[in-house]
């Protein structure tokens, strides 16, 4: 019984093509709301089945284990609130005549295909076809980032597509190298590109080739994950894309790239032991956290502020995965909480942008008074992102620091020092935005916009709060199975 899985992958494609052909705003809205519901429900059902049965698969094509199910949940949940938010956000733009109906339909077509590519990528069992899906998400994202066609948007889109294309090409070379090694064991066939088969035979693969493949995959997918020093596209793209797209880039696409890195890491760990991949990842992760926290203070653009925060949090999650053991648990947990919190923060930022039509950090103050919804959203999301309790990011950061302390104390010291700095600078900027006296008046938002965006923000915040205090039992089972995927390599290192 794999129908929720098929629904999860097919729904965005159907809804996207439907929106392109619909030609009426009301029809597009209905389709997108249906899509949001379908994604939420099917992601939950897939996760439930994986928790119960261990895995769900469509023979020869899709294969969902605990790791895939975890990312299904993240992308499905945040994708569905993102769709709701996009209906409100783009609808408001259309009400203000910034957008023609044709472009409105095009936007949703691209947006849904983008979600579809990402959902497909995490469920595919063939690493090369996964690459194709990830490249598909890159291409659709490139069109979405440049959607406004302003000079800035074009510049950001160009940077994004050039850097991501380079990154993704390197990742393909890594994939080819894995095939180069595995076809000696598994024969010249698609078998040699399946995750499950690769895990099975990982210890028989050539260590030199796998090391090289991992380096290419890490640089390649790392570019897409916005890992420093390949992060330069990220702030531009996040700042210039339409806000629903910024939220999806940050919460979903970076997460997807981390997923790809993890798949390669699992094979590499089994072949050469966890030290090699772990150390590389820890190095890049610490660099990312350092670079991003350094840029918090100098930001003059609130969307860029959140973009740098994404670099930081992806770095933190990667640090957890690099440390291994408890860190894997905390890293996965961190990714989910970050996706929820960061998309919420962008939703809030988008509302501010709709009101004031500028992104200057200095000119935005007193949001709590002026826009209670956006102000509360940004304040809560900001507090979560800074790593304060009662949100899950607090517990995951503590767990990662603890894991780092037992494994590599010097990493833990560096991590805590960077974290303290990032905490102070981010919180300073957030509080400055939320408190104080309001500045300019701006344009008030329409009713429909407030309903849809409010729903999106509400769902996100409720989930964030619900999972903040403790890990729900079902998710804990999933996380435990994810940890075993990575711990298998630790028992028998070569």
């Amino acid at each position: 019984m794999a129908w929720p899985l098929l629904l999860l992958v097919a729904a965005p494609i159907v809804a996207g093509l439907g929106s392109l052909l619909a030609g009426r705003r009301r029809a597009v809205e209905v389709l997108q709301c249906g899509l949001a519901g379908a994604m939420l429900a099917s992601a939950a059902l897939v996760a439930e089945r994986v928790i119960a049965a261990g895995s769900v698969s469509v023979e020869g094509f899709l294969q969902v284990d605990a790791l895939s199910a975890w990312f299904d949940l993240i992308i499905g949940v945040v994708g569905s609130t993102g769709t709701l938010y996009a209906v409100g956000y783009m609808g408001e733009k259309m009400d203000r005549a910034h957008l023609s109906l044709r472009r409105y339909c095009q936007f949703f077509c691209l947006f849904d295909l983008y979600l579809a590519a990402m959902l497909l990528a995490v469920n595919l069992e063939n690493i090369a076809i996964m690459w194709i899906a990830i490249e598909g998400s890159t291409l659709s994202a490139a069109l979405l980032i440049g959607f406004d066609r302003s000079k800035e948007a074009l510049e950001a889109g160009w940077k994004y597509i050039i850097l991501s294309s380079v990154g993704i090409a390197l990742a393909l070379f890594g994939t080819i190298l894995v095939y180069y090694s595995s076809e000696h064991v598994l024969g010249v066939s698609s078998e040699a590109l399946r995750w499950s088969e690769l895990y099975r035979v990982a210890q028989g693969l050539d260590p030199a080739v796998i090391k090289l493949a991992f380096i290419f995959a890490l640089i390649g997918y790392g570019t897409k994950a916005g890992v420093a020093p390949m992060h330069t596209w990220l702030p531009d793209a996040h700042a210039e894309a339409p806000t629903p797209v910024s939220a999806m880039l940050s919460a979903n696409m970076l997460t997807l790239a981390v997923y790809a890195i993890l798949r390669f890491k699992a094979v590499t760990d089994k072949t050469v032991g966890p030290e090699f991949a772990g150390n590389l990842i820890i190095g890049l992760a610490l660099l990312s956290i350092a670079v991003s926290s350094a840029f918090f203070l100098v930001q003059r653009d609130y969307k860029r502020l959140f973009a740098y925060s994404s670099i930081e949090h992806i770095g933190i999650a990667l640090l957890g995965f690099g440390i291994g053991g408890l860190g894997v648990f905390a890293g996965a947990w961190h990714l989910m909480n970050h996706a929820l919190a960061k998309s919420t923060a962008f939703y809030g930022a988008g509302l501010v942008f709709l009101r004031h039509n500028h992104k200057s950090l200095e000119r935005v103050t007193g949001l709590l008074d002026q826009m209670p919804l956006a102000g509360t959203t940004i304040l809560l999301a900001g507090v979560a992102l800074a790593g304060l309790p009662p949100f899950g990011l607090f517990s995951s950061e503590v767990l990662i620091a603890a894991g780092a302390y037992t494994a590599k104390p010097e990493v833990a010291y560096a991590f805590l020092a960077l974290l303290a700095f990032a905490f102070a600078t981010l919180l300073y900027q957030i509080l400055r935005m939320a408190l104080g006296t309001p500045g300019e008046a701006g344009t008030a938002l329409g009713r429909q916009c407030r309903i849809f965006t409010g729903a999106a923000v509400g769902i996100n915040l409720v989930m964030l709060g619900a999972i903040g205090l403790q890990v729900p039992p079902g998710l804990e089972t999933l996380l435990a199975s994810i940890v075993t995927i990575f711990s298998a390599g630790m028992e028998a290192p070569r």
Partner: protein
Amino acid sequence: MSLLSQQFGSQMVNLGSALLLLTCFAIVAQRRLSACVDLFALQSVLLAATAALVAFLTGIHHIYIAAALTVVIKAVLIPRILKQVVERLNVTRELVMNVNVPASLLICGGLVMLAFFITQPIIPLGFLLTRDSLAIALAIILIGFFTMIARKKAVTQVIGFLVMENGLFLGATSAAYGMPLIVEIGVFFDVLVGALIIGIYTHRLQDAFDSVDTTKLTTLKE
């Protein structure tokens, strides 16, 4: 297959790969945009010929399909798209580069050595017929990467990206006797769509900035 013809076949595959690498250097040394596009088309034809040779020597038939797709997409369709883009531009050649031509050539020579150095430990694992091409494939990827950094015009950056893709295809053919067909087709589709999207972007850049000089993209910074 006898040992001699095996060796001869391997030499011919190496020769094909070496010619591919030479076209890379020609692209690096070439300033005229339309000539760069032509050189890329030539490189794609050479790539298809090398792939077809591998298919012939190994008897793996799906590589023929991939070679045919290479000709159709990379030697005909994409160069045609790029030519249209070039015709719309108000520049025909790249006069100022981030790195001048002789220095670029030297750096690319260094990249070739780097590629050989990186692949040295893993070469003996490959098939006797094609394993030396893996190093050349990586060299082509690196040179394509370098071209994207060293050139300023959007069109040449695109060509750099496509050269990288050619290197990847050579790598897949030589290292692994081609990926499974479904993968190859998917990759080709992505490359075609990617080239189209980049083409669209170039048009819009030309309209918005009245230039495709990417050094003019400087609004976004800290």
